[in-house]
């Protein structure tokens, strides 16, 4: 069995590298999209709010695979080309951004109204208030659910294998197709996902405990 593991590991690690790259890029993309949608939703502008609601409800109500398929094949259908990696980043960012928007919205709305009022009287603009007063206060509120969403995103990258991207899950499938031994190979794939997600999960728990103590 050790020989099997040793021979499969380089291919799986190569897949893990792509999974990590895809995850980091999609985490950045989904965070920016989510934050933008949350700002629009809490802006008080009716049209902006409607756009944000439509976005969050639409993508929270559809499976991630449909979003990925729609982007990859949909763009091709209209005569444009998109590579697998870009489609994966775009699909995961748009899909997870809808959930992250709700995390940020809850954080923004948890900041007392009095913070906005005192900032207004002191002469701070809405943007200055958001950046310097509200956003820093949401950090402690949104961090645990945000990291939870990131963990979900990292695991969701395995679905990108369905459109043919050679990330960790896809590489595992390829090895199983070639030599069999699904229990060992998928066990190894699971361990690699766990090795990425577990420290992140422990870190947020540690951070939460520290915040509560301080």
């Amino acid at each position: 069995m050790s020989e099997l593991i040793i021979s499969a590991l380089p291919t799986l690690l190569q897949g893990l590298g792509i999974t990590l790259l895809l995850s980091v890029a999609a985490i950045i993309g989904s965070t920016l999209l989510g934050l933008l949608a949350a700002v629009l939703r809490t802006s008080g502008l009716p049209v902006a709010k409607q756009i944000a609601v439509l976005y969050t409800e639409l993508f929270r109500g559809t499976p991630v695979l449909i979003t990925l398929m729609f982007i990859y094949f949909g763009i091709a259908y209209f005569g444009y080309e998109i590579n697998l990696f870009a489609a994966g980043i775009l699909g995961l960012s748009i899909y997870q951004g809808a959930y992250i928007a709700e995390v940020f919205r809850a954080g923004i709305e948890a900041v007392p109204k009095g913070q906005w009022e005192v900032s207004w009287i002191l002469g701070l603009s809405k943007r200055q208030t958001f950046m310097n007063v509200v956003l820093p206060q949401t950090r402690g509120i949104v961090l645990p659910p945000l990291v939870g969403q990131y963990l979900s995103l990292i695991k969701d990258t395995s679905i990108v294998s369905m459109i043919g991207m050679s990330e960790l899950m896809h590489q595992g499938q390829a090895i199983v197709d070639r030599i069999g031994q699904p229990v060992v190979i998928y066990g190894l794939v699971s361990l690699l996902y766990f090795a990425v997600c577990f420290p992140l999960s422990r870190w947020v728990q540690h951070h939460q405990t520290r915040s509560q103590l301080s």
Partner: protein
Amino acid sequence: MSKPAIMLNNVTKSFGSTQVLKEISLDVSPGEVLVLIGASGSGKSTVLRIMSGLEKSDGGEIWVNNVPLHENKRAREICGHVGMVFQQFNLFPHKTALGNVTLALIKAQKLSVAEANKRGMAALERVGLAERSHHYPAQLSGGQQQRVAIARALAVEPKIMFFDEATSALDPELVGEVMEVMRSLAREGMTMVVVTHEMGFARKTADRVVFMDQGIIAEQGTPEQIFVNPQNPRTQQFLSRVLEH
């Protein structure tokens, strides 16, 4: 005669079907300390919030520091020219005392950090908290937090200060330190509008006391007139209830 610092002319305000202000007219002179008293729900906090631009009136005219607050487009001109102290302090919890005081100076007034710190420390000195400048709100007592909030409001050099039940959330033994800061501001000639349940403050520090009842000004006068010889039966009833305790 100097132009009033604040002028309210037939101001009305409703929340849903409840009319909380019924054609209120009121002037405040520069340097005057005006204290608004009245039972909960009488409309005194709404008057203060309208004067500070936090609430829009439904009708009437509001002039504060020559800014017509009833004109929506011009209401923002008041920002940075008035100070407001809230019942719940509303300090920024992620900033130190000095950080709270200097944020608006740096971001809104575009002062350099050094200049803002200098002015911020002077404001904290004024409320007796210079040595706590690097403490976060959670590390300060309620009274100290409220004094930081006063310093933050003073640092922008406002022409008028509003106090909305500034001592109501404090333990009784912490009320005195905040009251003393407010009294010293009054002595310095700051125009102040104060909503309070502290009748001692109203009696000793106010130039004029306004008693509000069910959205109207039921009676107003000097502290002597209101506390010693109130004319309106509702004022008499309110004061006898409040002064009993």
